[in-house]
């Protein structure tokens, strides 16, 4: 054997050894931790438990495909128990004690507001998957749900169009908290700008968990009997919807008479209601389970396999978490690290093909560009899509319909580097 051959062989051996070594290191490396901050008990468990399962499914899938940066990903699940101060405590625990790279969590606005100072203080990264009132852009939060211009306005425009029945009179009914208040404020300004007289708008707020809808449904009927086509725009929250729809159905309000378009009612909520009397009432979302795309088929299949129950539905916030998680993994791969500052930079412009069949993009205002779909409720608890936008719509963090917020810009890249500024922080 010549020296050369020996050298070559040695080299090869050395290479193999090095490879084995790095592989060994990769295997022994600490897993990347991510936090899951969703209520598993208390009032919000109804909605949030599913989102926890969604993230666990995504993590499971990622690990089967080899993990991230050669490391496994581990989800740290905690239960903030629908208790808002406990959300802040658990967020701090996740960031400081568990040292998670990112947190997926929160549903209600108040829970997000509660954890916000913690994320800003400790420079964490939160993915918030629910449609909300906007008027916020934090450096430490990525908002993967819809802003009002991605849900409410297109829905109202649809109802004003010939296809939607040319509605002239509007009932804005909501639960008394910040999301309905904002959405209704934006909608009122929008309707008035479209020439709807103030008398043709009725605004009504009810408490959380309101269960006795007899009076209000009767009021709506009375308001609708004025001879103009009337629709209800519902921002009624979670729990109160079941008795509301039951009352609607029993008082015989058909969608062809008074359509109700809701922004907080999705497949998961309908699973708790008998929908045979609600056919034709509407909802506006960025995703419906009934979307007919290959991506969606795969998503539903994956969900059913993970949860081991083919009756379970998928919904918009789940899709938002799907998008958020995919974007985060892509950004981590691109940045080559889980360091929050580096990943944040890599997030901007990140693109994910979502189950809705569109390419979803993360903008520099920390909100997504998403398509808007209007669906009508079917007897089987699904939605039939009756209208959708041609392209994805970019979310407004600050609504142009609220004078104080119309002045503000959210842009976290140079020269703005700001979530609520009237002028850039850095002059060019």
């Amino acid at each position, binding site marked *: 054997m010549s020296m050369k051959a020996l050298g070559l062989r040695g080299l090869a051996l050395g290479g193999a050894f090095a490879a084995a070594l790095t592989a060994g290191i990769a295997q022994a490396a600490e897993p990347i931790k991510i936090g899951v901050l969703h209520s598993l008990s208390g009032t919000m468990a109804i909605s949030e438990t599913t989102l926890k399962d969604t993230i666990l499914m995504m993590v499971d899938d990622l690990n089967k495909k080899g993990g991230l940066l050669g490391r496994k990903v581990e989800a740290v699940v905690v239960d903030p128990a629908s208790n808002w101060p406990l959300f*802040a405590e658990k967020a701090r625990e996740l960031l400081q004690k568990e040292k998670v790279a990112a947190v997926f969590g929160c549903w209600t606005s108040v829970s997000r507001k509660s954890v916000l100072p913690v994320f800003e203080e400790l420079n964490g990264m939160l993915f918030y998957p629910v449609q909300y009132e906007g008027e916020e852009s934090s450096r430490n939060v990525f908002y993967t749900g819809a802003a009002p211009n991605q849900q409410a306005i297109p829905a109202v425009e649809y109802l004003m169009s010939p296809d939607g029945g040319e509605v002239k009179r509007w009932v804005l009914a909501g639960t008394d908290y910040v999301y309905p208040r904002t959405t209704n404020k934006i909608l009122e300004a929008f309707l008035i700008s479209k020439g709807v007289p103030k008398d043709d708008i009725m605004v009504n707020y009810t408490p959380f968990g309101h269960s006795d809808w007899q009076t209000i449904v009767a009021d709506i009927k009375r308001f609708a009997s004025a001879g103009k086509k009337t629709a209800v725009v519902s921002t009624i929250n979670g729990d109160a919807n079941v008795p509301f729809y039951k009352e609607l159905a029993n008082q015989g309000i058909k969608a062809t008479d008074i359509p109700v378009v809701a922004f907080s009612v999705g497949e998961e909520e309908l699973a708790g209601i008998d929908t045979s009397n609600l056919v034709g009432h509407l909802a506006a979302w960025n995703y419906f389970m009934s979307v007919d795309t290959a991506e969606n088929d795969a998503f539903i299949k994956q969900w059913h396999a993970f949860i081991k129950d083919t009756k379970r539905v998928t919904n918009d916030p789940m899709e938002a978490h799907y998008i958020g998680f995919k974007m985060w993994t892509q950004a981590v791969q691109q940045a080559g690290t889980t360091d929050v500052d580096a990943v944040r930079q890599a997030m901007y412009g990140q693109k994910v093909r979502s189950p809705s069949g569109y390419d979803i993009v993360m903008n520099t205002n920390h909100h997504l560009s998403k398509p808007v779909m209007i669906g009508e409720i079917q007897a089987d608890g699904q939605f039939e899509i009756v209208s959708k936008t041609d392209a994805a719509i970019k979310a407004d963090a600050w609504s142009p319909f609220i004078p104080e917020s119309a002045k503000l810009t959210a842009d976290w890249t140079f020269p703005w580097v700001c979530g609520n500024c009237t002028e850039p922080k850095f002059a060019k």
Partner: protein
Amino acid sequence: MGPLTSRLLALESRRGWSVFCGLLLVAAVLVPVLHLATPPDSPLHVPAYMVSLLGKYLCFALLALSLDLVWGYAGALSLGHGAFFALGGYAMGMHLMRQIGERGVYGNAGLPDFMVFLNWKELPWYWWGFDGVLWTALMIVAVPAALAFVVGWFAFRSRITGVYFSIITQAMTFALMLAFFRNEMGFGGNNGLTDFKDILGYPLQSDATRVALYVASAVMLAAGYLVARFVVASKLGRVLMAIRDAESRVRFLGYDVTAAKLFVFTLSAVLAGIAGALYVPQVGIINPSEFSPAQSIEVAIWVAVGGRGTLFGAILGAFTVNGAKSVFTGLAPEVWLFFLGGLFILVTLFMPKGIVGLWGQLRAKIGEGVQNVAQKHRA
């Protein structure tokens, strides 16, 4: 040495004082020192999240203490103590909101963000004065006290006792919760007050402020404990206990039962209000869920777990239950309610006097055992 000092000193035995001072030293000095002075990787280090967690527990402990004063000594179980806590918290929250000034998202120095947003044109009158520290301090004490005085006056005058008193205090906190949920009230609705920036000019997010708030909570708890102990040991305290055990008899003996109960109920509300005021800057948010009846029931549970009518037990109970909650919601997020529910059931069944009483139970058992052994020995 004045008479008051000597009475104060007489509150506790020598051993009692040394335990009290020892605990205060650990809470108010040792924890902050271990947090600030040791490197983060040292085994003795107390991490930042632990400091804010303990600060929260201290506020809860003060709240539990205040309930024990009325429940444990005057026999009136208030299921609305969370309301006093929340009112103190709201007073503090309003002050902190006014401190934000132009740093809010809409940059309006005259109005908090949520008011700008709901098209309010000017600050409602009940917000006036909260810019000032003194006015705020006064309100933290006065608002809960006034509410307690009014509710207590109505209730005790009509000789409402037992469950009836519990239920009307529950109705009170429930009504307040619904009221604060309303956005028209001008307290921020469901989101409450949040996004605070600084307190007395010190940024709330800094470590030093957090430690200072923590120490303030520890000192307040100690002071609250002494005040409660003072009341309990006084003649009034003995009248209260007599009321607890046989109200009608005390009345027939000529004592003014209504006044005694009213005083202790109002005092207790003040302590709860202070607890709430210290709680808010540490957790960074106050919203109507603090008024929820379940929250107030939980306070009663802390007291019962620790041992009612002992003051110290209330503090112990608050720490035990909240500590258990913090640990279990992280360790066993799916099943922690089993542990917590189980704890409550076991405590009521096997520790009727709470954790504090457990010591007595054990001692009695050991004493019995010793006696038995001694008897055997003799035999």
